[in-house]
């Protein structure tokens, strides 16, 4: 044990977490690298693409070796399956669109990492997320990463001040280009590694193929209805669809049709025009605020209703314990229950919650 501040870095084998570890070593921290083994393929065969491949752990190990830091692999597959994968599947089966990365961060990645860190006497945990923790007047704040295109603050909205005090996000100040350049300069073999594009446990076939396999005979084929209730097509299972989806809807109709509602219970999928998916009001529950206190009712915030959506101006109201209502100044498109609604003030994440419902924008035309 040393006097240097100690940190446990989650290393996925990707270039971001590799550079995060390297930067911390450089800054004089006592660094321990760990890989959280979360997924071994749906049937126990390690995936060859996406995340958690055998190559990933090997890459993380080799970076740790190069940096001269201890490295361990922690197996949390059972917890991941029970805490993330199964609830995500159940969410789709009930007609919502969960964000697995948010569930993982909430329950697994940061919580378990923190447990392991405290067990080993590490004061801090660190990840390669593109986001920043900045302390102002003694209070930690969560900010977007400097590379807007790569910003991952959206999936970290559930963190509170206590968590942020012991979280280090070393690459948040850098652009992806700078991260890769740093990796190259350090001779990390992950410098040119491609990013894993999809949700880590979804294979090459994408979420739809994954759900088809997992839900199999729980899928109930049914009808695709238009706004008026007329049948315009058939589907293989309502759980396979998400709000705003256009592809894969077997519809014979003029004009572009998008999924406007999904109801696995009745087995119906509704489609409509683009305009029908514009919403001005979003309601969310399971709300958390970074500072611990909700913002004043009717205060101005910027809202993201999806990981990659543009933030929209609006006003936030706390409705009951743990719930909020967002009244947007301009409409959001295809608000999907199950996704997170995250509130920003400038670059700062102030909090968010899980979307439960939205109200269509009556002024939308079409």
């Amino acid at each position, binding site marked *: 044990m040393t006097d240097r501040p100690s940190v446990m870095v989650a290393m996925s084998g990707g270039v971001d977490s590799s550079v995060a570890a390297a930067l911390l070593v450089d800054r004089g921290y006592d660094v321990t690298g760990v890989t959280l083994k979360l997924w071994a393929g749906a049937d*126990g065969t390690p995936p060859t693409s996406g995340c958690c491949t055998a190559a990933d752990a090997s890459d993380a190990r080799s970076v740790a070796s190069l940096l001269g830091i*201890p490295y361990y*692999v922690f197996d949390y597959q*059972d917890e991941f399956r029970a805490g993330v994968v199964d609830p995500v599947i159940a969410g789709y089966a009930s007609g919502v669109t969960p964000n697995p990365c948010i569930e993982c961060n909430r329950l697994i990645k940061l919580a378990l990492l923190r*447990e*392991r860190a405290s*067990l*080993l006497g590490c004061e801090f945990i660190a990840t390669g997320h593109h986001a920043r923790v900045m302390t102002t007047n003694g209070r930690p704040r969560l900010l977007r990463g400097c590379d807007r295109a790569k910003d991952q603050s959206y999936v970290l909205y559930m963190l509170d001040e206590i968590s942020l005090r012991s979280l280090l996000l070393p690459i948040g100040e850098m652009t992806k280009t700078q991260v890769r350049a740093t990796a190259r300069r350090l001779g990390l073999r992950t410098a040119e590694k491609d990013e894993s594009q999809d949700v880590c446990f979804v294979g090459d076939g994408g979420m739809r193929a994954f759900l088809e396999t997992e839900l199999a005979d729980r899928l109930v084929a049914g009808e695709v209805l238009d706004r008026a209730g007329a049948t315009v097509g058939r589907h293989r299972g309502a759980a396979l669809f998400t709000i705003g989806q256009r592809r894969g809807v077997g519809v014979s109709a003029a004009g572009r049709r998008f999924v406007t509602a999904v109801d696995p219970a009745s087995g119906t999928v509704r489609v409509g025009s683009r305009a029908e998916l514009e919403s001005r009001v979003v309601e969310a529950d399971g709300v958390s605020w970074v500072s611990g206190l909700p913002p004043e009712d009717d205060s101005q915030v910027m809202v993201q209703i999806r990981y990659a959506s543009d933030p929209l101006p609006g006003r936030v109201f706390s409705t009951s314990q743990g719930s909020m209502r967002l009244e947007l100044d301009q409409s959001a498109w295809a608000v999907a229950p199950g996704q997170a609604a995250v509130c920003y003030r400038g670059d700062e994440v102030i909090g968010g919650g899980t979307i439960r419902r939205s109200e269509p924008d009556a002024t939308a035309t079409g």
Partner: protein
Amino acid sequence: MADLIYLDHAASTPPFAEVIDLIAETLRSSPANPTGAHTAARAAVRVVEDAREQVAAAVGVNPGEVVFTSGGSEADNTAILGLAAVRGRPAPTIAVSAIEHGAVLEAAREAESLGAELRIIEVDDDGLIDPTRCASICRSDTALASVMLVNNEVGVIEPIAEIAGNLHLASPGAVIHTDAAQAFSTQPIERASLEVDAITISGHKIGGPQGVGALIVRDGLELRPLIRGGGQELGRRAGTHNVAGIAGFGLAVEMAAERRNDFAKRARSLTERAWELIASKVDGAVVNGSGAPRAPHILSLRFEGIRAEDALVLLDREGVCISSGASCASGAQKPSHVLSAMGCSAPEARSTLRLSVGWSTTEVEIDLAAEAICVAVATLRREK
């Protein structure tokens, strides 16, 4: 290594000093390829054949019955795939125990995917195989059976001679292979006494280098080679010999056999000491396979209420090197198949630590390690 308390000898044990010296000397003095037609080649041949004689003598076979390989895994694969392939075509029946090393199991599964019928011989809760039960599983049509003499994870010693004897009666044409990699350092290995047809030996388990081993194959048994090419090893295993490694392996086999009795006694007293220390300070600790005869150098313990991988990390930070289950588990995600076959639940399997001693292990190391294990277990239990 000097400042570590290394107690993972079942994974790999440091080579004898004499072996290291011999390997270095051989690399300098006999670097030629044994397949040449000249003096330099013949010197290398001499080295290989001397080693072959050492191995043959230790196991009570003819030199021609020793096939050098790249280690235990290759020997296991050659036994399963090479011996079975030529028997009972087109679809031989292969029987392997439920607790075999991954190399045997995976090779058997490969054989199955190629058309063989695979039968698994179960074990009881102590990891033991009942010879009568085994014979009835194998019936009369088994072409190849493989049962390890000492299990690498829990150390249980199987009654190979009895098993083989029963099997030969039940399935007269059967070829019987035993993986003796973990057994060699403490158990007598003599082919005829074991009544087997093929034996796997591994260098790095017995004071030899990693990357060298042997498959003992009874004279007269046909073997389809896995590695083809230059016809070395009488056409049974191609590839230029690892001359220096083989020299080291031969010496290690000789030395390990010589020291076997002494080591077995020392190892027994060391692992018993470890168990007594731990059992006296920690509740809910159980020896896996406690009802079976076990090799003296392996101690497999499970501790209620902890995750082994957490303990390993805590111990690693104290400089104590042990393992949980098998060391080949880096790719495996499921709880140990050995412990599962012995009736352990998944949590029980995941709370198992394996401590194994070697020639160099001292009582001081045992005391320090036992203490560290007790502290780690207490820490983990407190944390819950």
